[in-house]
């Protein structure tokens, strides 16, 4: 099926080497898309806007705790074309560094020096990629817990990918109605951050009068502290692809779009070769799969911004309602799910909704918790939904130092004090304290961390990633970061933070999407739980 030519614009810009002078005009002449629009799209995505930067050092919280600043400095001194960037979904292998579109794990200052000023020679000496059989630089992170019983796991990340298509065939035999019942019984909630009951979306798309429907995979993982989707795609691409095929079959879609962030070169390769196995075997009938790359924009993980990006536009979130279930890709009903959510589908089909539900501790299912920061073994841990921080960290080998604070669900969830260590890490329990499970990107901070500094990393992130469409977020993220800057620069502390509460209120009430609504949380929660750090 042919798609509107506009949707090819970001890829055309990439092929042309980015938004260089004359490129937008040349593409406009070929495609008939207005040149200003192409330029606007190119300038929106960091990887297209600044293509001359070949090396990007993640300056997210976990990476900075692990020496990202030194790596960045070394790279700059070595004359590499380098800049800092937002989270690369490599918080478990810090500091993560991007070379063109390849994420290198745990890059050290020595690695930078060894490159000798040539960015193409930049390699990671991490054991994850340094082994002789890893010449292709494919790598994956550490997973756990150790000795888990595979029968109690949904993803079983250590397990062997299954390309038989059994779950797809079983779902096809069940038919939509019976399957939706299983899905409802499972209690599956969206794993991308919002925790919305999955069965409502599926039924919603299924019931639309419009018969052209789409299924979209949201693999634009970028919430600081989160890297589980990367791990699922690397280790169990079969679950993701079969889940998508089941989704298409159940809601009546013929086409599936996979939107992977542009920095996921390795997961892309894994997913593509897995898809080839399914397609060669003809497992999924006539369902078509289309891969689309992101080009450096956190906001495109927001579902409607992602749809805009898929349509080849600037990734600015849409107003909701209407929701994608009714008006999605090219205005058609669209089922859009996070990687982890969709990967739950084949096991639910195979083993039943109630099996899934009972795996959870306080809410249904197991959860892929990402843990990074001050713990022994950062990584992705599949554990019952609702375990607490101590249980999670125990699985990850224990704390490094004394727990001071933690961010339970990515930058958007703010910070909680050590006293909340036994609160279930679940959608409901974290919502009760004004935080959220979000994407379950847990970052642990010990007593060495000044919360002002930690908050600053998150505020810088949101400021850099705001799409700029609405004033509360565009100005608010800038204003909060600027206020904290002024606060930190003044001694004795002045009144720089006096409008933070009003600004945060406005951002939460007034912003179009979740980015702006959540962006003040790191500051407001830290001010609430760690006031002494802001007085020092």
């Amino acid at each position, binding site marked *: 099926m042919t798609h509107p030519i506009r949707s090819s614009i970001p890829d055309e810009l990439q092929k042309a080497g980015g938004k260089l002078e004359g490129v937008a005009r040349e593409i406009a002449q070929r495609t008939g898309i207005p040149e200003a629009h192409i330029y606007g799209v190119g300038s929106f995505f960091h990887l297209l806007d600044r293509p001359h930067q070949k090396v990007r050092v993640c300056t997210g919280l976990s990476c900075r705790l692990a020496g990202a600043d030194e790596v960045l400095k070394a790279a700059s001194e070595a004359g590499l074309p380098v800049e800092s960037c937002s989270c690369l979904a490599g918080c478990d292998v810090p500091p993560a560094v991007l070379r063109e579109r390849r994420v290198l794990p745990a890059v050290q200052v020595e690695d930078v020096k060894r490159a000798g000023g040539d960015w193409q020679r930049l390699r990671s000496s991490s054991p994850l990629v340094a082994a002789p059989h890893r010449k292709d630089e494919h790598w994956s992170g550490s997973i756990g817990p150790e000795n888990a019983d595979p029968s109690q796991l949904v993803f079983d990340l250590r397990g062997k990918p299954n390309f038989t298509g059994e779950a797809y065939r079983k779902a096809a035999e069940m038919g939509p109605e019976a399957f939706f019942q299983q899905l409802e019984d499972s209690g599956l909630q969206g794993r991308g951050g919002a925790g919305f009951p999955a069965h409502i979306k599926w039924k919603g798309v299924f019931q639309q009068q419009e018969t052209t429907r789409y299924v979209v995979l949201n693999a634009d993982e970028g919430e600081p502290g989160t890297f589980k989707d990367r791990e699922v795609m690397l280790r169990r691409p079969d679950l993701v692809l079969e889940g998508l095929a089941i989704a298409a079959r159940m809601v009546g879609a013929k086409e599936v779009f996979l939107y992977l962030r542009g920095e996921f070169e390795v997961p892309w390769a894994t997913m593509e070769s897995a898809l080839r196995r399914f397609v060669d075997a003809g497992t999924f009938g006539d369902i078509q799969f289309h891969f689309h790359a992101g080009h450096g924009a956190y906001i495109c993980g927001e579902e409607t911004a992602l749809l805009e990006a898929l349509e080849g536009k600037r990734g600015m979130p849409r107003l909701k309602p209407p929701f994608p279930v009714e008006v999605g890709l090219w205005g058609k009903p669209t089922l859009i799910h996070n990687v982890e959510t969709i990967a739950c589908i084949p096991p639910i089909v195979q083993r039943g909704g109630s099996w899934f539900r009972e795996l959870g501790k306080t809410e249904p299912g197991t959860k892929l918790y990402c843990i990074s920061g001050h713990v022994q073994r950062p990584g992705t841990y599949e554990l019952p939904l609702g375990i607490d921080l101590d249980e999670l960290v125990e699985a990850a080998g224990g704390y490094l130092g004394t727990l001071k604070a933690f961010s339970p669900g990515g930058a958007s969830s703010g910070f909680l004090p050590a006293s909340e260590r036994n609160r279930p890490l679940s959608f409901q329990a974290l919502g009760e304290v004004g935080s959220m499970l979000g994407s379950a990107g847990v970052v642990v901070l010990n007593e060495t961390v000044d919360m002002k500094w930690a908050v600053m990393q998150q505020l810088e992130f949101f400021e850099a*990633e705001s799409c700029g469409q609405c004033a509360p977020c565009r*100005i608010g993220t800038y204003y909060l970061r600027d206020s904290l800057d002024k606060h930190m620069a003044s001694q004795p502390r002045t009144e720089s933070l006096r409008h933070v509460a009003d600004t945060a209120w406005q951002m939460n009430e007034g912003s179009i999407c979740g980015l702006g609504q959540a962006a003040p949380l790191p500051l407001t929660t830290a001010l609430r739980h760690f006031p002494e750090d802001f007085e020092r």
Partner: protein
Amino acid sequence: MTDRSITVNGHPWQAQEGETILEVAARHGVEIPTLCHDPRLKPAGACRTCLVEIDGWRRLAPACATPVTEGMSIVTENERIDRHRKTLLALYMTDHPQSREESERGAPDQLFDMVARYQAPSDWGVLENKRQGRPDDRNPYIQFNPEACILCARCTRYCDEVESVSAITLAQRGSETTIATVDAESLLDTTCEMCGGCIDVCPTGAMAEKIPLVRGDKPERELEKVRTTCNYCGVGCQMDLNVDPDAREGQGKVVKVTSPPVGTTTNDGNLCVKGRFAYDFIDHPDRLTQPLVRGEDGELHPTTWDDALAKAATGLRGVTERHGPDALGFVSSSRCTMEENFLMQKLSRAVFHTNNVHQCAAT
């Protein structure tokens, strides 16, 4: 169209299917502030000033983009909405010139009106502007002042949706988001047709007309508006001549042309490059203001209409007599009305017996 029963601030009202909250409110005289709204454009809901409360909705909703539904209960004024307007406007002001004097360049800056209307604080401090402009753009008419831009995107949407020209775009993102052309080119080197609609739709005056700025004309609020019909072509667009009554020693002078309000005239506020910008002929020294006839000395001399027309008739008849009717050709201007064009072809065919008649808009 089906009726919808809704409640606004406790009043039971009827609305039509498809109407937005903003439209219904406007019809009943209920004030809801907007900055990014323009009835000619699809609602963007981006400026966030029009947020209202809907019973049963957790989040505030943009009145401009939310269609009414049966039984909807809407509140446009309460403590929450008041706090929303005040804090939102306070944030806008941190990223904006701090006084009208700094901000306004001709047209009034509606942000200041709104701050005053809702008693919003304007002392939250000042952020450094990060929006790039095009200070070297050599186009003669349109100047963009990034400092005063609030990114309502009315200009880019107007350029896309009304003019289908798409010369300008939102570019970059976050606090660096700005209004740009492809590769920061001059508007002259883009698809821009210089209609000046971007100036007309801008609520803050960030898009402004260059010539009055260069000349140092008075701000718009000190000018007198005179509604007239554009005489550049036969379409009949309505426009407002902005007259400085003190200029030319009190005789007055047209220093600008602006659009009548949207929805009030047949051209719906739209003008083209000629109507909006080509008004300098009015006082131009080269403008012909009386008939001229060339004398024996080879120079042009002022005369009466009767004399001038008699001379022209004699000359035209002479050509016909010497070379036949088809030696003549008549070309009329698209600035003429249809009636005038009709008379021109009558003159050509009935009086001078030639079909050599043309009008410049006919090709």
